[in-house]
């Protein structure tokens, strides 16, 4: 018997993950918060960016972080130090967060605080440009980072990640004077695979470009949670 499964099952190979991701998103929507899934290769600067961004946005938004890390809690400790609730999710050998792991993290978060008080939940994914692109965790938007030291060919070598991202941050732009890399070329390659993406050039270390990114986060969160108009970020 040759039986199409479409009637009995979702057609999606990832249906089991997708169901859990949809369930997570229902929670986020019930709590009226925005969830951003932050992804990049290891060392592109996710944690450094979040340190700066969370500090800058703390007067305006209630935030928490679900911190994916393969073995350590080092990143979680760094983000706790900027004064935000952090739930570490140690993935062990898994090279990405999946929806079930995030669901477990949400239960821990609920033990600490009332998520309905939050405006924005950051999910910092495991450093990897391949797997996290296919494993939705229930996020509303995907943010991908690419550091200028990784080279301008990465959007073409790992196109699915940069295609799926709603927002791409080109990080460490303060290092450009020391590198044989043209940032315009990186941006062109990103836009070639994903013309709809918001693209920002930033440096968490010098602070360059962070204001525009912070305004975007604030405006996107406000729009999502149907709050009042954009305010000045200090």
């Amino acid at each position: 018997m040759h039986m199409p499964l479409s009637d009995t099952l979702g057609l999606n190979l990832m249906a089991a993950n997708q169901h859990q991701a949809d369930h997570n998103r229902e929670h986020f929507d019930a709590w009226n918060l925005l969830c951003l899934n932050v992804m990049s290769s290891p060392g592109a600067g996710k944690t450094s960016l979040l340190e700066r961004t969370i500090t800058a946005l703390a007067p305006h938004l209630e935030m928490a972080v679900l911190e994916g890390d393969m073995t350590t809690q080092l990143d979680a400790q760094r983000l706790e130090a900027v004064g935000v609730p952090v739930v570490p999710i140690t993935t062990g050998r898994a090279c990405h967060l999946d929806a079930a792991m995030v669901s477990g993290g949400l239960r821990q978060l609920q033990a600490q605080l009332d998520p309905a008080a939050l405006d924005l939940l950051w999910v910092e994914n495991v450093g990897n440009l391949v797997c996290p692109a296919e494993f939705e965790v229930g996020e509303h938007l995907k943010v991908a980072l690419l550091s200028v030291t990784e080279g301008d060919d990465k959007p073409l070598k790992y196109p699915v990640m940069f295609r799926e991202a709603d927002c791409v941050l080109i990080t460490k732009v303060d290092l450009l004077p020391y590198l044989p890399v043209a940032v315009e070329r990186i941006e062109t390659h990103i836009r070639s695979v994903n013309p709809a993406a918001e693209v920002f050039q930033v440096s968490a270390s010098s602070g360059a470009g962070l204001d525009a990114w912070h305004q975007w986060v604030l405006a996107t969160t406000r729009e999502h949670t149907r709050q009042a108009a954009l305010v000045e970020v200090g």
Partner: protein
Amino acid sequence: MHEVDMTKCLLLSLHEWKRGQEPLTPVVSAVHLQVGDFTCVEPEALRFTFAAAVEGTWLDGSTLEIDTVPLRARCLGCSSVYSPDPDQAYRSPCCDQPMEEIVSGRELRIRSVDYSLPQQASDPAAVPSR
């Protein structure tokens, strides 16, 4: 090796489907997937992990058949459908436009299952736990 987790997802879906057939246990000979070229899935790795994962389960003896689907996109300029080339930054050869609309290549689908239904109730002890 995210194909391991993808295989787990696939097995969960197949297990759900099997429960819908109870009290009969379908004997599956093949599972057909559609996998787009513009995904993070390596078909060979998926076949390998599937074969390892079904050993000794109700799916033992079944094969994973994977149809790959080429990446195709519609040109923003002239609406013609083209095959994006990484060496051309995935841009359209006709109008040099970015890859706006993907027509195919993002598929990750369970398409169908080849199976037979023996006409006796399944032995509950033979059903693997999830």
